[in-house]
């Protein structure tokens, strides 16, 4: 069950995993995610399905090390098995032909962006993608994104690759240059927040995909709740994508820090056992 077929190191902290999961490979659509648990002791962690090969019965995940469970996931090798994996979860992205789509991906957020970019391109849109990261070695999936984009703009905080600056600088340039009909933003919550503020200024409909903290992923626990348009929504069943102009990002940012101290403690415990 859930055997790892292939791994690829994208950067120091980001790993691509190809996992055997035929049912999920068949049922998934862009925007869907899975929840996995590496072993008995692991946390249930949500990861977007970055791609799938229905014939081979595999799905692609791109994981970033942030805490104990994701660290242990990134250390798995081909042949290893993931104990539990459930999906596809969430609502699929609404993909339609709107004209020109601006796709903004920050850090590991480029992974979930990939199937969406692919979907929009296949639906006949002009797709401009902006990939942003702190520095060159953190830019991932550039070739794959290029394959489905009419234009790709790279932004790095330190200017080590592409242009120096934040994702919003690149996005504004495009907006001022040509008519953008829709925007998709996936990445760290802060990045999505500022992208949403920008597109709101220009009145461009924008979807953001939220990475709330989750437990079950089926609507049972409410850990993933966010405020959208003044109403409480559950990211796992009502999302993960929402109208970015309606999301209360400040609340989301606070909620993401909810277990921070516990996670840091757990991570330190884990590292001390590794020496």
């Amino acid at each position, binding site marked *: 069950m859930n055997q790892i077929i292939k791994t690829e190191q994208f950067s120091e902290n980001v790993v691509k995993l190809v996992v055997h999961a035929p*049912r*999920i490979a068949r*049922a998934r659509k862009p925007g869907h995610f899975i929840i996995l*648990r590496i072993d*008995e*002791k*692991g*946390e*249930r962690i949500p990861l977007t399905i970055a791609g799938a090969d229905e014939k081979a019965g595999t799905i692609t995940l791109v994981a970033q090390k942030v*805490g*104990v*469970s994701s660290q242990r996931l990134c250390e798995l090798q081909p042949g290893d098995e993931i*104990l*539990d*994996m*459930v*999906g*596809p*979860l969430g609502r699929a992205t609404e993909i339609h032909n709107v004209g020109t789509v601006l796709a903004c991906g920050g850090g590991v957020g480029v992974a979930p962006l990939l199937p969406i970019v692919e979907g929009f391109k296949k639906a006949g849109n002009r797709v401009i993608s902006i990939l942003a990261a702190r520095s060159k070695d953190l830019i991932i999936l550039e070739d794959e994104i290029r394959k489905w984009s009419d234009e790709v703009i790279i932004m790095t905080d330190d200017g080590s690759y592409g242009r120096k600056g934040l994702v919003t600088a690149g996005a504004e340039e495009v907006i001022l240059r040509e008519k953008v009909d829709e925007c998709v933003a996936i990445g760290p919550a802060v990045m999505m927040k500022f992208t949403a503020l920008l597109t709101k200024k220009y009145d461009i409909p924008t979807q953001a995909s939220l990475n709330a903290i989750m*437990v*079950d992923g*089926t*609507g*049972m*626990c*409410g*850990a993933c*709740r*966010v*405020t959208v348009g003044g109403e*409480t929504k559950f990211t796992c*069943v009502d999302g993960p994508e929402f109208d970015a102009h309606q999301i209360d990002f400040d*609340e989301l940012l*606070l*909620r993401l*820090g*909810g*277990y921070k101290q*516990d*996670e840091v403690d*757990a991570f330190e*415990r884990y590292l001390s056992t590794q020496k």
Partner: protein
Amino acid sequence: MQEYLKMEREQAWRIELRNQIKNKERTALPRVKMPEMDPQERICYQDREVNLGLDVENARREASRCMDCVNPTCIEGCPVSINIPKFVKNIERGEFLEAAKTLKETSALPAVCGRVCPQEKQCEASCFYTLKLKKDPVAIGYLERFAADYERESGQISVPEVAPKNGMKVAAIGSGPASLAFAGDMIKLGYEVTVFEALHEIGGVLKYGIPEFRLPNHIVDVELDNLKKMGVRFERNFIVGRTATFEDLKEEGYCAFFVASGAGLPRFMNIPGENYNGILSSNEYLTRVNLMNAANDEFDTPVLKGKNVAVVGGGNTAMDSVRTAKRLGAARAMIIYRRSREEMPARVEEVHHAEEEGIEFINLANPVEYFADEKGRVNRMRIQRMELGEPDASGRRRPVVVEGSETDIDVDVVVVAIGVSPNPLIPSALPELKVSRWGTIEVDPESMQSSIPELFAGGDIVRGGATVILAMGDGRRAAAGMHRYLTESK
């Protein structure tokens, strides 16, 4: 039914037993006390059961209180009509395995129901002692638990016989008590049964909800093993409607479905500040601890351990949460409930145990707002006092706000346990399925058949939050209903 009860009652051994002791002597005996772990000690463990169980001597003595009534009203109080005097009298005469067998004629999970049924509202409420003598009822729940535990510990659990395979495949969706009861009956009838569960553990609320200090996991596991031995297949990490659609499953040969997906959707109050960190649903809180083992440092999942924990609600879920908080080290673990103690829907025994463990009860109070520190972590809650007015539709007196009665309490964790709504996953996957205004699946109460002929449903998804025994009863009725439907439509 009446005939069968009479026949059983006229068996020689029962007559003899009745003649051994005079009813006057029987009714003079005091009700047995359940031995319990000491409150101060038990709050140090998340997974040690509070009730320790009766020993043989006490069980037989308690069984001898039962008068084997001509008209056993107790049975009317049991939602699945267990033949109570028959199993109790078997205990009295020392035939404990026979007693367990009697329970299994009707109940799929007696070790569970003996522990978690609200007996004081069901069988024991209708016992002759309660109704007519105004005395403490026969401890039917304790005796049920005794017989089931005795059988399990004797290592002589009988695996029921299974009819030859009839070649038909059916699916149960969800793995809570409703599905387990359904699966047990269907496999006996010769069907191939697969139970699909969304989570990584089988058991539904029995595993992720009810804590081990009330219902140890190993007791549920024995029942699951039994079902496996009988041939039931379990597929975990499988969400019907997502991982595969009903159409996919039909193509794979499933000819009928039993939906028992539970009432998993937590309710919140929608009051200001409710999304601050540290405020969570009882489902999240209990799932982290019971399913993910969060209280144990060796497991990766964290759980918030508060000093001042407030739990909002008065049901079993609220009691389980507040007692869990105490076990996680809370200095102050409080129940905030908007009605009075008498109206609490929780099992009486649990409220009593909670009191022994030092839980504070702030009754007739309701939260109206939460406040947080600069990091967004809750640090204070505002409550409003209530008083009881006229009875509402449920017969309970409706709480009314006392104007100007707001006070603040310091808290660092708040658990919201005000109820759940039906899980919307299945109804949303089947637009043609008839559901009520509340999102419960509508079924024929006899056959449990829904508006889609090959789809049956039961448990909380139909009742919107009920009990283990009612869910089990539904599972059994659905099995009978589905069997009839599949045999007739052949």
